[in-house]
């Protein structure tokens, strides 16, 4: 059985680096000679088409890239304009001249300073005293309540006895 060229031998042959044995085989084998010629032409055409298509696709990519960059810049400009408008319109329409508040603060501080510490403490004590019931008040009120309650209960008890 006659052995034809391996892919390794074919690759070397196509690269022009075939050894003497391979060259001798190709010169004596019509099938290998025919295949080598066909592969050489086919791979040459393959490279040629690849180079051509790649150049074409690269041009397209560059054009598409420029186009998208332009579209992006238009969109970016529009977006920035909208943001500026959204911020500036309320500021302009609601703008009022406001007098400085510093004197008011100064008066408040002056008013606060007018009340002395002793008076302030006395006021606080009064407030606290009015909110917290006196110790005897609660007991007096409670005594009255319990007294009436005892009275009624004693009456009840006397009624029961009767």
């Amino acid at each position: 059985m006659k052995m034809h060229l391996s892919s390794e031998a074919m690759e070397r042959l196509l690269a022009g680096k075939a050894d003497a044995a391979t060259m001798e085989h190709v010169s004596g084998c019509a099938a290998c000679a025919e295949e080598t010629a066909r592969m050489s032409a086919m791979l040459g055409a393959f490279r040629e088409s690849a180079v051509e298509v790649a150049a074409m696709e690269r041009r397209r990519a560059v054009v598409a890239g420029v186009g998208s960059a332009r579209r992006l810049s238009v969109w970016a400009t529009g977006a920035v304009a909208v943001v500026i408008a959204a911020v500036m319109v309320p500021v302009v329409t609601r703008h009022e001249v406001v007098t400085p508040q510093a004197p008011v603060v100064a008066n408040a501080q002056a008013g606060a300073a007018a009340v002395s510490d002793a008076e302030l403490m006395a006021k606080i004590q009064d407030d606290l005293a009015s909110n917290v019931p006196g110790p005897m008040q609660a007991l007096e009120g409670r005594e009255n309540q319990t007294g009436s309650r005892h009275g009624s209960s004693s009456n009840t008890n006397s009624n029961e006895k009767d």
Partner: protein
Amino acid sequence: MLQQALQPGELAMETVAVSPFEDIDAVVAEYEPRVFRFLLFAVKDRDVALELTQDTFLNAWRYRAGFRGECSVATWLMRLAVSLLRSHTRSEKFKFWKKASQSAVDAAEVQTALRHRDSSAEERMSARQQMAQVWDAVETLPQRQKTAFLLRFVEEMELPEIAAAMQLPLPTAKSHLYRALDKVRKQAGGLR
């Protein structure tokens, strides 16, 4: 004695070499079409190829200190491109965009891109059919075989350069290339 004759300053002047990537504009101008071409047919998508090409040169600039001149600039760039391609094809994003991309390269366009030389209609038809067979075969190749095939037969790189670009031992790179060539030969009707 030669070493005694050389002054320290002269030795330093000889050993210090300027990285070619310092002039990145010149590198881009010279190699960008080639890197783009390889990536285009590796991913078959114009936009992805352009993005990966830009990333390749960005990485070339970023890691320019790592280039020691042990391989050519083209091989170094292809190595970066192959590395990016590998991580890209592993990502889920690639699997999705492979199906849904609008900037995919049209296979028919590739197959009919041959210049019409002074040949008969029959010869042109035959050439187109053969081209279609090769492209179909290349499309079905696993990623590494496809990479090796494109680097060899489109970029015309030598096997040691392919091995360096793919970061593989030379025998492994050879194996990928020969398996790819086997499939293309079978598809083209040569290998039985």
